[in-house]
């Protein structure tokens, strides 16, 4: 039990820090609340979908921005828009915020600005992915040890 409690405490601390750093926001908490016996892996599922989707979008954006002949900003914008939607749905606040800036560069058709934003997106995304994977691992450990995942309000 001590192990479980320890793990749980670790989980709570970690979660709190993620929120504090702005990596995750309240939406993520909502997702966690949606998880229940009927959908026990809901959060992991959504997160996985998000990771896949995000990578795809990042690739699209990168490709579009690299076009020497002329960047199709509309296409970039479309991808950014989608990324914004999905990141906000999952609670990936920092990623979402970068998207907002990214969009204005797209509108301004500023290639440099867009590229910079893309770099930021990649950075934030990697960070988020790592952190979430750590969090999920912690969760798994708790469950394996027979405990339940604490709900963070």
């Amino acid at each position, binding site marked *: 039990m001590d192990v479980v409690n320890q793990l749980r405490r670790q989980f709570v601390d970690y979660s709190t820090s993620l929120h504090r750093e702005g990596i995750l926001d309240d939406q993520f908490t909502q997702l966690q609340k949606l998880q229940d016996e009927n959908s026990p892996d809901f959060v992991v599922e959504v997160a996985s*979908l998000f990771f896949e989707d995000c990578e795809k979008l990042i690739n699209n954006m990168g490709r579009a921005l690299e076009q020497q002949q002329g960047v199709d900003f509309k296409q970039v914008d479309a991808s950014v828009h989608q990324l914004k939607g999905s990141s906000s749905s999952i609670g990936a606040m920092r990623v979402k915020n970068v998207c907002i800036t990214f969009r204005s560069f797209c509108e301004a058709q500023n290639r440099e600005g867009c590229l910079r934003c893309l770099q930021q997106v990649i950075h934030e995304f990697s960070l988020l992915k790592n952190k979430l994977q750590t969090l999920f691992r912690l969760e798994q450990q708790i469950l394996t040890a027979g405990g339940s995942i604490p709900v963070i309000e």
Partner: protein
Amino acid sequence: MTVERIVSETKDQFPIGMRVLAVDDDPTCLLLLETLLRRCQYHVTTTSQAVTALKMLRENKNRFDLVISDVHMPDMDGFKLLELVGLEMDLPVIMLSANGDTKLVMKGITHGACDYLLKPVRIEELKNIWQHVVRRKKFDRKDRNNSDSLDKPHVDSGEAAGMGNADNNVKLNKKRKDQNEDEDEDRDENGHDNDDPSTQKKPRVVWSVELHRKFVAAVNQLGIEKAVPKRILELMNVEKLTRENVASHLQKFRLYLKRISCVANQQANVAASLGTADSSYLRMGPLNGLGNFHALAGTDQLHNAAFRSFPPSGVLGRLNTPSGLGIRGLPSPGTIQLGHVQNSGHSINDPSKLQSFVPGNHNANILQGMPMSLELDQLQNNKGVSHIGELPTANSTSVFPVSGSLMDAQITGFSNNPLLGVTSNSLMLEGSSRQSALHASNLRDGVYAIGFQNGNTLSEFASIDPVSNQLRDSKADLQGQAASINCNAGKIMRSVAQEWNAPRKDAPYQSHLMSCSVNSSTSSNGAMVQLDQCLDRNNSIFHRTMDSDSIGPLNFVDPLSIKHVEAHNSAMEPSVIEKERYLMYQSRPQGNHIPDSVGSLEDLASAMMKQDQGKGNRRTQ
């Protein structure tokens, strides 16, 4: 995911078990949405393709109660899907987007969305979406019941209500519905009294192109003012079509006409939108019988009841006609001739000078001529398409209450926001409620000149002869018309305004709001009052400056304006054309989206109004 239908159980427990179709190309969001919806105990079907969604819907119209769709999708624009669903299946559609831009929200509303949610969507919001289903059912029912009844009281009270709620046309509608409901309760013609959508057993009628064509032909034959569902049904002679079906379709049609009759000044925008709208309208195209409806023929004088075919010029053509038609109660939907508004000479006594404007150019000048005899001097609409209803000569009676003030260029800051939709909507509404009220002579009243924009300066509002006298006569008519139109218009205008604003920034046109500026000089009648109400609503919305090249003085005879006219001649500028079809616009603007747009409209309106009537803003959003 499949929809499990537990028919009997779910019916009893509505909203539990409500069948929702969720469409979103983003898998993350889709999964989240599905989970949330399931958590609300709805039956959910998901798809990431709009095309698939449409297919599913078409296969079985009764399979779903509600559709939730993302705006931004690769295979089809969310708005397009929205329109198609509304048109073909008459299902409530909720839009979903990460982008909460007012313009987009407005666009959603004008395309007929019941609601517009922002991502990330919260479960609390989803818990209430069932209300859209209920509302629609109720509304449909009421509408059908009403169509035949020509209930003046409805209208009146509706208008009155509307008046009060200047800012919320929806409320007006709602009120009307409620009233209808009350009144119709005992004579509910619908066999099914269930408001419970899931128990509605009425089979959905598919308004195919052919069917719609017949419908339009029938309406044409009867004349928009006299087109009552019963008669339309008879003329159509289609098996298994009920009066209720026709009635509700008629209402939508009117709304549509109204909508497209709004003047859209933005050429480019309009053109663009028309372009896109085209396809959606295509479906409606034949449906609307735009062709049949009197298009602005420029020179024709419409006779009262005749809807003239409107030679569609470009995209607008299509749109235009409906507008002409849509005007219910407006004196014969005739083409509104711009340019000739001559106070003196036209003796268009026939109220039927309803002219719908067909914006000559694709872009937009869709003037929806409310059948009003407007004497617009300058309605020269740019491409000749816009015809503004001529006011029957200045004689008293036919004069359109378009107050002289109307026209003159009320150029408001609204640039390009064609208040589209409003027109059609209002027309539609009007039609239904006012059947009796409006008559050919209504033309006078109803001059709704919707100035189409053309990028030209407004101004040309032809001098609409303030036909006070005419107003008087037509007041009653107008009232009817105006009221309904107004209400609708208001609604539409509101939504449209925003939408249109954006694209058309370049055009300095002023949208003419559908202003019913009824001649102030006319004595105010009770009708006026009503109009007034409507007007208010419309006014605020309509105050859009439109380029008037199309239609100089678009005078919308807004019932409301009539009253206002007295107080002031508020020249409501014709609104812009709404490019999208506005089907039963259930405007239920969520507080969040609409306010902005309304606000601006209202500001505009107020500004305009102020000058004329010092009526402050009635609407507060």
